[in-house]
């Protein structure tokens, strides 16, 4: 579990926060409106955002600014959305994608 930095020695206190509710893999969480989805999930202790399509190994954020696409999730039914550059809204439904069923490779 990680935590929010409510009071920062230089940046001061966090201001103008508005709590919203969203779901991730059918569980309900709270986050701050317009923070990134990746930040909201991490603040709830969630690092694993998806499972790699072929190997099924867990993946989380890497670059956090939209370049690497490691954090792609399904938002309100739309797949391939980058959690790190998507602002959190009330009632968002977020799901992680998983390993794809691939036919046995032909020998």
């Amino acid at each position: 579990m990680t935590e929010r930095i409510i009071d920062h020695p230089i940046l001061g206190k966090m201001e103008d926060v508005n709590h919203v509710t969203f779901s991730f893999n059918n569980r309900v969480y709270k986050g701050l409106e317009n923070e990134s989805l990746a930040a909201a999930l991490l603040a709830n202790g969630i690092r694993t955002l998806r499972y790699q399509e072929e190997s099924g190994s867990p993946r989380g954020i890497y670059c956090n600014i939209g370049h690497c696409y490691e954090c792609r999730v399904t938002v309100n039914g739309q797949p391939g959305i980058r959690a790190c550059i998507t602002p959190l809204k009330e009632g968002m439904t977020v799901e992680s994608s998983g390993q794809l069923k691939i036919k046995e490779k032909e020998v």
Partner: protein
Amino acid sequence: MFKAIIIGSGPAGLTAAITCAENGLDVLVIDEYMSAGGRLLGQLYEQPDGSWWNGLRESKNLYTTAISLGVKFHFNTSVNNIEKRNNRWVVYTEKGTFYTENLLLATGAAESPVPVPGWTLPGVMSVGAAQVMTNVHRVKPGKRGVIIGVNVLSSVIAMELHLAGVEIACLTLPKMNSIANKEGNPSQVLDSLLHVSHMATSPLIRYGSKLLKNDFIKNLGIHFYPKKGFKMWNTPIQLRKAVIEIYGKDEVEGVVVAAIKANGEVVPGSEERIQADFVCIAGGLYPLVELAALAGCPFFLVEELGGHVPLHSEKMETPLEGLFVAGNITGIEGAKVAAAQGRTAGLAMAIHSGIKGLDTEIRHSMDMVKQTRESADIQFHPEIEVGRKRILREWEISQTSKQNHEALMG
């Protein structure tokens, strides 16, 4: 149709937008992030005069100024392609197509990855990712982290994490391999570290930087470097150890470090485990240039500038008419230099769109870029001037051959 379109709302893009708007141009700024500022958003460090550089505040100020001048913004908007058609630049985005005669690419930089075994585990992130989580979103990247890669960026961010109450177990090198060659070599790392020396609280770095100016002394320095490492901002820095693996079942649980010789080779049997719940990888920055490549801009590989950069003039023009560049797309430097370049680019765009009487101002602005560079708090490459001169020389060569060609055809 906009008089000017700017892709990227970092310090370069925002300053260019303000400059264009001040000169009467209607401006659209496009950025795929959620808010304005780019990499400036996360920046936080103490300047030599003791004041704090607060990137979040600087970003907000620039954005507010731009809005007050009527600049339009499209955030959360990725650009998929740009091309020139009928003398206009066409910008294709996921939210529609936009047209302009003056297009500025201010797309900034990306971080070079340094692959280490185990680096796909959740909890492993670029050092910039930890910076944005901490300073922009105010969420701790974890309780205890290890930073792989000792360079200007990672040492500053280690300090920022420390400031926010996040424990950094250590900064250490990646194991040398074909990809992580430079980042894994202690003497080259030391060379780059000298450029944050004024910010270092460790006497070793602060006074060491004066002693370590030449290569011979630097090599001596690395041989005699304390095996236990030293501390900067209370964070242990290990130049004699390297991470050889990141371990963990489903998420990061720690790293395996081993002692390394001065040439970067691992000492067998010296492996030990360090517990951590997150790991940052710091491979340095490179210019983010895809859109310039799509446009057909010629490129040069200039190591001092951080990689391949589009050919450009001191006025930030590219050889393609109506296409300009500013900020880290032209080479890796600090936000203040990027902003100064943005001002020059904004003036060049205004001149290109027919505004008269800006000659003195753009000359002054070009001087300001140089002055800002000379007095920069943070230098990413020790030979930045060499890189800048190289690209300007290439520009002159291309202009001369263009004139010769025109004379021949004339």
